[in-house]
């Protein structure tokens, strides 16, 4: 019997990753070449503030009317948040509509510890307050997650939404958090070069570089987590929670992990935001912010790190880019319509690529199965 059975074809070296396309080609490259490419991308990313100097295409890319490095920094914390939310939504499959809550916790922790307006009067340096801010964000994630992770799907969504709204309302209405008067004088990150501080107020480029460096570290961490036991548990939970539980995955534990790591990255975004702006008030942390980041993650391709980066960047870039373009109909600045246009863009992207722009391979394959599964009656 055994002699007649033909051996199954040898699986390719890198398994399901290497099934054609740019990514298949990329995965088939030798390790050194892969890292060289990634390094090249990183270097190019660091050079982004100077993209406007490229003749011809440069001025098309940058947004006129606002400071391009500032726009890049905004993009960088959106990307960071998208990476964090991708852990929660994309990897673990937990729908979180209140992600801005953790961003707020991070920013307010820094503001409370450093600002002269704070009732704590500690006036720490920015760097000293960062670990505290991150720890507080993570604890906030655990506090929110522990009672609520027993809820499923859309119930979890509304509870997380409620959590973010409660944080916003507390920030708006209590004297301790100063509402929309906010905290002024939050110190900038440390360091000086040539007698001047590196992180000043005039030029946002160093902040962008800082954000980019943090993003690279986060990418490395998240990518390794995704490939570890934790990542496989998330995958199992996302696909079928009951089955995962029966197979011995401690679902609550790993869901809490996802929440805590997501909260940590969200807090990271918050402390950076506070450090760059020097000012924190309650107007920043509105529900739309969470929604935008979520739209970025899903639009880019939930469960895929590259997709989350692209999505996060687009969410920040598209509305900004509409500034200074006058529309033919009303002859006003399209910037007023930025979110309206953005809404339409989201719909169009999702209709043509429901799996996201750069979907995770596994998800794309699942979707293909779904399309075959049932022919919907229309």
């Amino acid at each position: 019997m055994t002699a007649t059975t033909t051996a199954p074809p040898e699986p390719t070296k890198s398994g399901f990753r290497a099934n054609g396309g740019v990514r298949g080609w990329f995965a088939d490259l030798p390790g050194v070449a892969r890292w060289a490419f990634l390094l090249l991308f990183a270097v190019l990313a660091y050079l982004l503030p100077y993209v406007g100097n490229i003749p011809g295409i440069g001025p098309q890319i940058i947004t006129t009317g606002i400071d391009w490095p500032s726009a890049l920094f905004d993009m960088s914390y959106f990307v960071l948040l998208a990476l964090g939310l991708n852990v929660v939504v994309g990897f673990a499959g937990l729908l979180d509509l209140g992600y801005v809550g953790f961003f707020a916790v991070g920013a307010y922790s820094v503001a409370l510890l450093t600002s002269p307006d704070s009732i704590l009067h500690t006036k720490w340096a920015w760097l000293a307050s960062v670990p505290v801010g991150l720890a507080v964000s993570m604890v906030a994630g655990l506090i929110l997650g522990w009672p609520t992770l027993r809820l499923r799907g859309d119930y979890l969504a509304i509870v997380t939404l409620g959590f973010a709204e409660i944080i916003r309302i507390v920030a708006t209405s209590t004297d301790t958090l100063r509402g929309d008067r906010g905290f002024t004088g939050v110190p900038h990150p440390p360091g000086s070069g040539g007698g001047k501080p590196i992180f000043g107020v005039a030029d946002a480029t160093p902040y962008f570089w800082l954000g980019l460096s943090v993003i690279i570290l986060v990418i490395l961490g998240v990518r390794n987590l995704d490939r570890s036991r934790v990542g496989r548990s998330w995958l199992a939970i996302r696909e079928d929670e009951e089955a995962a539980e029966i197979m011995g995955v401690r679902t609550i534990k790993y869901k809490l992990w996802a929440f805590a790591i997501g909260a940590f990255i969200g807090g990271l975004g918050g402390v950076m935001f506070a450090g760059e702006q020097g000012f924190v008030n309650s107007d920043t942390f509105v529900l739309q912010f969470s929604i935008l980041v979520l739209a970025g993650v899903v639009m880019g391709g939930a469960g895929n790190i590259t997709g989350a980066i692209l999505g996060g960047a687009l969410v920040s870039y598209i509305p900004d880019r509409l500034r200074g373009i006058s529309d033919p109909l009303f002859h006003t600045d399209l910037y007023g319509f930025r979110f309206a246009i953005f809404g339409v863009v989201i719909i169009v992207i999702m209709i043509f690529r429901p799996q996201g722009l750069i979907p995770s391979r596994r998800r794309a394959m699942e979707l293909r199965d779904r399309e075959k599964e049932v022919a919907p009656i229309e």
Partner: protein
Amino acid sequence: MNFSGLIHDFGPLTVTGLTQGAIIALFALGYTLVYGVLRLINFAHSEVFLLGTYGCLEMWGLFGLDENSATPSTIAVIGLLVLGLVVAIAASGVTALVVELVAYRPLRRRNAPPLAFLITAIGASLAISESTGVITHRQNKGVPSLIVQKSVFSIGNMHVTNLQLLIITMALVMMFVLDRFINRSRLGRGIRAVAQSPDSAALMGVNKSRVISLVFLLGGLMAGVAAVMYVLKIGTTRFDSGTLLGIQAFSAAVLGGIGNLRGALLGGLLLGLVENYAAEVFGSQWLNAAAFVLLVLTLLVRPTGLLGESLGRARA
């Protein structure tokens, strides 16, 4: 903390709470209906409501009425109210159908993952509310004073005004009609069948996409009524009114058990009451926070809401 105020004003607070709750409940029905059938949080429902408020205001504007004009005669008021209702219902219903057609149907045809629906819903909501914001210059739009509020009857210090009575009665009537429709009519049976099992229902000859359109339309109708009640009560509308009230309405739907019509009514009324009590005790800035705390606490004890899900199957 103002507990004595709560005890002293318990009656009036209850009436205002019930009025607010009735509007929220009508609004919540749209979320619950769509969720019951499609398992989809229809984020764009808040904009269905929003266009309802603008619809009736534009209608009244055609008669030269704005927030400064004098109250017309009783017969004219009744006529205007009916016209306003019709236009608001039409505006909301059409919006709901268009959103379904543009944002959801293409995805359904491709059998897209649930998250994709959620994101197009968000996109549709953004597109509509922001366009409204730009067109109206993000200004408040005032409402003509059609109904002069006067006390109809009172128990102790609880005075019930004609407007409050109208809103609560209207909401209850609409709820009753909808409940009968879903539970008694042939179309309602189709809705329940699709909610229980879309595929089996389709095999039994139920036209699934027609049922889905019908569900969106029904939600829109209810939102239209809620919109008229809302402008009469609040006296103003704005491009983000829908989103702000929508969060509460969605909470109410979840609180009562999303997908459950009676749950939406219960959740709405309860939410209205608790918000009003909390606003009195803690101050009005805590109104929404109280709603969410109530929601979270309820879900911890009853993870599928107060009455559970009944329109559709139990969730996995």
